[in-house]
């Protein structure tokens, strides 16, 4: 397949690349940019492991063509730290509350949580549970993930 030129802005950095036009954002992030923090769990937009932020909104990078997001700002888990290199509150809370087990769903979960808290800074527990319903975790039963997010909301 003939490659096309593409300019992607990811975590504040600009990338000039050539890719086949059928490449998904997930494939380009992982294979071209070697940002492997974003995971593929199902490849059909169900599990949420590939969630990244596109201009602050959570999207499934496995169902998004890379060419579609030219001109937007993409944030992946690698871009979550603050400018001074400190962990984001959500990242720290996941560590402190034991919300991480195998860690495969964690990047997607963090990105969804981040976007959710931006939208709804003082949610109820029910809101958080509904807000996370696009992200599957097989290890935790979600309790500690929900607690970690509620903790961040309280701090804010």
């Amino acid at each position, binding site marked *: 397949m003939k490659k096309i030129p593409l300019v992607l802005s990811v975590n504040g950095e600009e990338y000039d690349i050539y890719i086949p036009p059928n490449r998904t954002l997930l494939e380009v992030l992982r294979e071209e940019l070697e940002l492997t923090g974003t995971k593929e769990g199902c490849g059909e937009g169900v599990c949420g492991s590939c969630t990244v932020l596109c201009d602050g909104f959570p999207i499934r990078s496995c169902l998004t063509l890379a060419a579609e997001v030219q001109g937007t700002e993409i944030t992946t888990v*690698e871009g979550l730290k603050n400018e001074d290199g400190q962990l984001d509150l959500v*990242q720290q809370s996941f560590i402190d509350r034991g919300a991480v087990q195998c*860690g495969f769903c964690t990047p997607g979960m963090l990105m969804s949580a981040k976007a959710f808290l931006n939208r709804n800074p003082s949610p109820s527990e029910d809101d958080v549970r509904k807000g996370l319903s696009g992200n*599957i975790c097989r290890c935790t*039963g979600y309790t500690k993930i929900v607690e970690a997010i509620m903790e961040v909301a309280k701090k804010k």
Partner: protein
Amino acid sequence: MKKAHTLIGERVPRVDSLAKVTGEVRFSGDLIFPRMLVGMVKRSPLAHARILHVDTSRAEKLKGVKAVVAGKDTAGVKWGVFGYTQDMELLPRDKIRYFGEEIAAVAAVDEDTAMEALNLITLDLEELPAVYDPFESMASEGPPIHEGYPNNINIHVHIDVGDIEKGFRDSHLVREDTFTADEDSYFQGEPYAAVARFDDAGNLEMWMPNAGPHMKAKPLANLLQMPLHKVRLRKIAIGGAFGGRSEISPADYICALLARKSGRPVKIVYTREENSVNIRMGHALVTTIKTGVDSKGRVLARDITCYMDGGAYSSTGPIATSVPFLCMEQAYRMDNVRYNGYRIFTNKPVRGMIRMHGRSFACGVDLQLDMLGKELGIDPVTMRLVNARRAGDFTPTGSHVASCALTECIEKAAEKAGWKEKYGNLPAWRGIGIGVNSVQTGFPLGIRGGSQAFIKFNEDGGVTLISGVVDNGQGNDNMLVQVVAEELGLEVSDVTLITADTEVTPNDPGSYSMVSTFAGGNAARLAAVDARNKLFEIAAKAMEANPDDLVLENKKIFVAGSSDKFLSLQKVVRMGLIQGHPVSGEGHYAPKVDQRREWVKNPKGQLSEAFSFGATIAEVEVDPETGMVKTLEVTAAQDVGRAINPMVLEGQFEGSIAMGGQGGMLTEYHFWDKGRCLNPTQLEYKVPLAADMPKINNIIVESLDPAGPYGAKEAAMSIAMSAAQAYASAIADAIGTTIKDFPMTPDKILAAIESKKEKG
């Protein structure tokens, strides 16, 4: 001198979590090497067929294809967990036994080329009659799935203890019921991926999700006809196992073959569908249970016959056929008991062990206790209590139970859940139910030994632990660090880990069947004790003290009772180096079991050195219009022996309730068109979401096992299983009738309500 524990029992954040929240951590599929190729597998379009010819010539000629392999490229060695179950060629030469089985594979420069190459491979297959159901399979007069197994019976486990006929004669009440369950699946977060590369000296390096690198390296070496020391499985993050990462996978072998043939690194990443169908899945079960009780509800006799759909190969067959029975014989006292377990070959994907393996078995035993209790006027909690296993007992097959706080688990769970107030008093369509289970903690399976660990003291006073224990996501790395830091009076950050790398780390039985804390944790603790003893010898000489009087705390070595007289840990380590006695430690631990015990031929004797026990209570509300179940609250209590890290334990409890109860009993099952699995994807196989999960109460009960490290046994397997039983029992209470076919999907619940109405 003994000091109080400072780190054991603390809610220490897991040491692996930082790399997991930043995206830094690498899973197998994340690895990138120069000149790495994409590997893909050609799969069988038939469920049962003879392979007449596989033509790979056109694929080989395609530009960008660097290697193609098929059965002809293998040494024909078969894989099996035991010598007597070696029946699986990981790239078959002669015969296909299930739809989707591996036939050939390619390695190419990119995914598109690899896919194109797969389409150029042509198969000449002779289709054979296939069987998709264990009963149909036993009755089949067609060609057997494997030679040498009459009626396609793969395994028959027979256990007969006491005098069940007399037990039934003496019984006040006897019931017989049949319980069934469909196949269930792991759906680990991480789909399977394997990466392989050879160096010029012929050493193989591999990365893949594994529940025991040492237990995978051995069969890989056999299959590849290589010396074991040349097969090097490397440490890598693993995205969940739940029983599905213990055996070698065809992907491992095929990836290594492609890397060898192409001379380049190869990565195979399975699709979600392949992860479901081509690794392992849970068995479907049909279990008939006959139980006799006296007027107090005490079980006098039990006779269980279970048929398991084993799929196309033996896998862990002898173990899988035994464990559901063993869990129940551990959980409940039963003097007179007979068990006949049959694992049957069918032309379906291979079945292995899964977290709630045997859900129809365990749920059947518990539901029957409920039904018998109802006839006797005894409530479910009392039925459990009168039959509960106690410390000091022997199980029917002869295992001594050294520690057991099951009664306490049941009582504490019942109190927390408000059982007395709720049972029998809940509004219409609400119900409460209890489940009880027990699992083995560290059994060697007859195929593996214990765990060994080394400690190296670094010049700054910190240590490096070298252990074969692998972390599948449950927190084993953190467990090891906490144990070593505890023993050596260090901070968690002073302990560095080198684990799960077969070139470097000593042998370990693998992180399955609940053995890691018990064996691996004990080995790490003993290595730390060994290193500490050496530190004390050096310090004692310098301090002119008796080594037995020394204490190691806060990186200082004291004479007990005189805190002003001490040497810093760092100084003692340096003294050792200068004096020619560098400080290191070695520890090993193998669970003490009866090595004569064998799953099929001799199922008696000490099976496991310790056993964990759990009781879970679930409260549910059923919508009689839709059949949907809302879980209101779950209370889980487990005798874990000792909580090394309560926060990690709670996470295991909560995950167990999600998989065993919420998913396992309400939504999770596979459905089929003959041998073809129709819901291998994440979209069609329904696992619980955050919004589905109820409020959870965790109760940690500590029985302090005499052999476990600090008394620890295992984390939450008996919750996963008892949660399934609790959900089944609660739904029966809510709708006033017992469903015996699992999972309890809305259609089954509506049918049960309807049928109850008709019967009046």
